[in-house]
């Protein structure tokens, strides 16, 4: 049974679903496309489907395989009818069986969208008035991925509708400190937002709503189903899409007057200076120390304000670096870049959705205060808020002795922050063991107990101990592969141990999550 097939016979959804039965599957989702009686205002009474079968089968197969790998589902299949179909007949069927429903829905959606977009299938519509015409199904998919079209199923949208209303800033312009002049300042401004996650979503939504003329969205990740509870710019159908693109699409739809630039890239030493140069203000919405320090350093070197926030479970911190105004920066507080993994991130420690929403909103507020010249800007201070107790602290954090004339002696050239040799490898743990890596599981004991590594030998060495004792106790000739849940702690630990002179320490890219998703496919041998 191929994952994608054509059929000249009517489809039997019950039999198709039964073929995907799997005792380990807890969720099954299917999509059916039916022949509808109308297309673009013309009554249709039957259809003929034709396909470039050899090419279409290959492409269809590729799509279903991609979906299975991307969403980690247990089984997926798509069958498309060919030949003549009457009204109401089943034209295309997609079914997905998986451990849980979220992946099943997402993979099902992905398959039908991509099949309609990429597989060469044509339909000849026979209209009630006796006329007929060929339609390439590809055009049904539209320019915006995820736009909701059934297969000759739903009415086409937008043809007879009024043009959308103009975006209206009257509620904020009514503030005497904003007014028309303030609105013009916002329209002329450019803001770079690093990270389109729990913090980035509210920052972007409120800055777009406020009419900040240019927004640069920097994020190299893809939307995951586990993001959705705290990242309201995304919907389930976005799962698997690059976050920068999905966010930019949503913001452009919110306010088409703005220039929204997606940058599908990790903010790193190679692009930091160019990206920071694009904005008047930089907003750090990243989820790791490495990026936070890099954003801070690049902003200080460029003499631009950076609005930084971090959250942890039910609390968070907010700081505004003001190298442009003789103010303190992140390094005044934390002189040495803190290593990732000492304290958990959202994936490891958990977070309630409104927590980053509160801090992202505070960041958006500080950006608007800066751009509009409003009073009360946070400067030389750190704001701590605990959203469980609702306690907040404003702690004085003055400029350190190393900052002078807009320069900080603690900040070296950005290029020095890039590791000399790649520390990340991406390959199945079984293959890594076969290639001679010793696997080191640096998760906390309770994490490792919850989800043990199976099938390979590994050393349990929780992160704090590894960083403490590793430099003295690890063998300099052995290749170690550090493993954590998502690859953030292991990467930071590998870099830290490399800095301590252990050249043969590597990090499993994407952590154990990448193994589950089946993405770890290639790697360089030790």
């Amino acid at each position, binding site marked *: 049974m191929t994952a994608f097939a054509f059929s000249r016979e009517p489809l039997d959804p019950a039999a198709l679903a039964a073929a995907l039965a799997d005792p380990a599957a807890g969720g099954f989702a299917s999509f059916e496309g039916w022949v509808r009686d109308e297309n673009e205002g013309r009554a249709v009474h039957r259809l003929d489907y034709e396909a470039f079968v050899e090419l279409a089968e290959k492409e269809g197969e590729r799509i279903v395989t991609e979906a299975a790998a991307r969403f980690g589902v247990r089984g997926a299949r798509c069958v498309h009818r060919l030949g003549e179909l009457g009204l109401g007949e089943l034209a295309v069927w997609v079914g997905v069986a998986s451990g849980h429903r979220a992946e099943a829905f997402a993979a099902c959606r992905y398959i039908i969208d991509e099949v309609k977009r990429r597989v060469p299938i044509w339909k000849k519509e026979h209209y009630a008035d006796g006329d007929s015409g060929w339609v390439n199904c590809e055009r049904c998919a539209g320019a915006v991925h995820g736009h909701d079209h059934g297969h000759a199923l739903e009415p086409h949208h937008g043809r007879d509708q009024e043009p959308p209303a103009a975006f209206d800033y009257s509620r904020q312009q009514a503030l005497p400190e904003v007014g028309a002049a303030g609105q013009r300042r916002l329209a002329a401004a450019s803001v770079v937002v690093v990270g389109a996650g729990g913090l980035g979503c509210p920052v972007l939504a409120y800055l777009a709503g406020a009419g900040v003329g240019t927004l640069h969205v920097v994020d190299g990740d893809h939307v995951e189903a586990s993001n959705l509870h705290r990242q309201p710019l995304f919907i389930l159908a976005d799962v698997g899409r690059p976050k920068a693109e999905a966010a930019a699409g949503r913001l452009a739809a919110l306010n088409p007057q703005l220039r929204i630039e997606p940058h599908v890239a990790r903010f790193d030493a190679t692009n930091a200076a160019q990206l920071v140069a694009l904005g008047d203000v930089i907003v750090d919405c990243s*989820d790791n120390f490495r990026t936070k320090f890099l954003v801070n350093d690049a902003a200080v070197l460029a003499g631009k304000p950076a609005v930084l926030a971090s959250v942890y479970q039910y609390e968070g911190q907010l700081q505004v670096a003001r190298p442009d105004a003789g103010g303190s920066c992140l390094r005044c507080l934390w002189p040495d870049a803190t290593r990732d993994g000492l304290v958990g991130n959202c994936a490891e420690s958990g977070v309630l959705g409104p927590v980053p929403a509160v801090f992202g909103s505070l960041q958006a507020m500080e950006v608007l205060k800066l751009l509009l010249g409003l009073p009360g800007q946070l400067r030389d201070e750190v704001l701590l808020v605990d959203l469980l107790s609702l306690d907040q602290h404003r702690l004085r954090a003055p400029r350190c002795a190393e900052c002078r004339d807009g320069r900080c002696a603690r900040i070296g050239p950005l290029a020095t922050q890039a590791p000399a040799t790649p520390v990340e490898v991406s390959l199945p743990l079984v293959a890594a063991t076969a290639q001679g890596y010793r696997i080191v599981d640096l998760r906390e004991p309770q994490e490792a107990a919850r989800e043990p590594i199976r099938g390979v030998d590994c050393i349990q060495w929780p992160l704090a101990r590894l960083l403490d004792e590793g430099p003295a106790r690890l063998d300099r000739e052995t290749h170690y592969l550090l493993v954590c849940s998502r690859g953030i702690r292991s990467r930071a630990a590998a870099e830290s141990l490399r800095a301590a002179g252990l050249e043969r320490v590597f990090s499993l890219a994407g952590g154990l999550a990448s193994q589950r998703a089946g993405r770890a496919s290639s790697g360089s041998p030790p």
Partner: protein
Amino acid sequence: MTRLRLRYYALLREQAGRGEETVETAAPDAAALYDELAARHHFSLSRSQLKVAVNAEFADWSRPLADGDEVVFIPPVAGG
């Protein structure tokens, strides 16, 4: 003995099992206080990985403590 009001954030809050407490201590400075608390609450972070603020101002670990001071320990956080 000095009587101090303490606040914990993030990982320290979890490990202490509370967000705040009042203690009486003979610790002369912030460093000695943290060491005393680390032993009691089994904190996993070392001083070099933390910040301390006394009376709403970030302070050095050698900062002497006085009766009634409010001391806040802050680990770095990176979630986003």
